[in-house]
């Protein structure tokens, strides 16, 4: 179960206090400096190696500008290609993810609170999760036809498991005394679900949502590589056919930046929502 849950840094008690601020400043510096040094090293290595497959970052930056940027201010400086491809990609990815989260959380919480239901569904879920989602792309392709429905189906099927299994795990972790407290005060069903089970499961749910989000990006790319009429994945495939490595790398960079952006936003939301946790946000899973 925990295989779906990535470990995230915990700030232990020994990290707090006066030395913390200086430490944080150093780590921010490192966070900025290390990638810059890495990019410079890559530039030098690429110029020296002169391989068409690994263009220097400056060439990639130029290709990035030409492909995705340089549009008018009314389009937020995005090029037409960007508007016509990034937006549909993101809509599919985020739409599929949102559906998977809603389904996964409701189903997972229900399963987590019923040992009997878990007995029946557990092995089936463990197997379903083990199926590599791209393997089902051809099935969804014939069932839903080329394009958005197929891509949505692939994304939803692929990313629902981490959320579902983590939600079940979280809902199961409601402590017996917490359960008894709710029973003693005869807390009505609705209030029990939304006031106790959901908050108790939330740290695990967030851990699952983060894994799912990065998986959604991966599946969005795969489904677009296989069959799409637009999208970042299609642009990547087109660049491959032209052997245009600069543009391929520009697409890779764009996808990496988007992945980083979504992860950061979700983390920020998580910190806010889980601010009630003793000692700040804790490790969500593993």
């Amino acid at each position, binding site marked *: 179960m925990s*295989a*779906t*849950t*990535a*470990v995230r*840094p915990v700030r*232990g008690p*020994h990290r707090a206090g006066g030395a913390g601020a200086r430490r944080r400043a*150093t*780590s921010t510096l*490192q966070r900025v*400096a*290390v*990638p810059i040094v*890495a990019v410079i090293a890559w530039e030098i290595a690429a110029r020296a190696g002169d391989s068409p*497959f690994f263009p220097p970052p400056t060439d990639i930056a130029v290709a990035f500008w030409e492909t995705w940027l340089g549009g008018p201010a009314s389009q937020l400086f995005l090029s037409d290609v960007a508007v016509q491809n990034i937006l549909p990609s993101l809509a599919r990815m985020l739409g599929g993810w949102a559906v998977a989260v809603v389904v996964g959380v409701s189903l997972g919480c229900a399963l987590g609170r019923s040992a*009997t239901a878990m*007995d*029946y*569904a*557990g*092995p*089936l879920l*463990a*197997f*379903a999760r*083990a*199926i*590599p989602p*791209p*393997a*089902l*792309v*051809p*099935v969804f*392709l*014939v*069932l839903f036809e080329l394009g958005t429905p197929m891509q949505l189906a692939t994304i939803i099927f692929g990313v629902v498991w981490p959320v579902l299994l983590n939600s079940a795990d979280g809902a199961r972790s409601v402590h017996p005394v917490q359960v008894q407290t709710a029973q003693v005060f005869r807390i009505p069903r609705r209030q029990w679900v939304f006031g106790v089970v959901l908050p108790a499961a939330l740290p695990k749910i967030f851990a699952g949502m983060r894994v799912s989000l*990065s998986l959604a*990006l*991966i599946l969005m*790319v*795969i489904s677009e*590589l*296989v069959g799409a009429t637009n999208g970042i994945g299609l642009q*990547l*495939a087109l*660049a*491959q056919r032209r*052997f245009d*490595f600069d543009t*391929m790398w520009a*697409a*890779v*960079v764009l*996808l990496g*930046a988007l*992945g*980083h952006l979504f992860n950061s936003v979700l983390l920020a939301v998580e910190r806010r929502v889980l601010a009630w946790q003793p000692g700040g946000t804790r490790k969500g899973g*593993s």
Partner: protein
Amino acid sequence: MLRRVVRGVIGFAGFLLVWELFSRSGVVREEFLPPPTTVFARLAVLLTEPPFVADVVATVLAWLIAVVIASAIAVPLGLLLGSVPSVAAASRALVEFLRPIPSVALIPLVIVLLGVGPETKITLAVYASLWPLLFNTIYAMSEIDPVQVDTARAFGLSRSRILWTVQLPHAAPFVMTGVRISASIALILVISTELLAGGSGGLGQVIFDAGAGGGRMDIVLSATLVAGVIGFLGNAALEKVQRRWLGWDDQIDAGR
């Protein structure tokens, strides 16, 4: 315990029954979603055909090799980087920078670079599964409770003894979790590459060939089931290793 097994089997049977009825109901064309009876009959035939078995072996081999290579690189590197605090912070920043790059986006690039042979899928799977493993290992080594190390030091243990008796046992559960995450990612990458590259054999290729033009969905689903069984068994085996040798981790986690 027996009741749980029986219930699990009933759950499976129930799912297959619903699938069977749905496929035969005519809501979708039966060729598009063949019922489980057809799929399992096809699977039984396929498993006796040497070419199919060879494809299964090709996928499993590529997967195993990728996981072994990724572990051989990431675990020692992670232990090394993680045990020096300043290096750990810097390398974590680098890992954080490189990790979001979706490995699947590199598939087209590596295909052009390396062709469609097994080295392509292994390279991609190694690259993709490197990150969670590296990240978990660095994290485990650098976030160890200083009290544990100080306790060992107070008892006069040498640096290497501390490494073997305190730091590695502390890191082991995190590393194992990293291996499990990596293994599932590696399988996705191997099958995705086979699916997109063609010509390299393996289950992904079987799925691609049979699925082209909406053809033989019974074969597609058979191969998908086999892929699921491979992933399931791999995870179950690693979980068993984790329980058996690192069973104490649950108590440690509970005390946190």
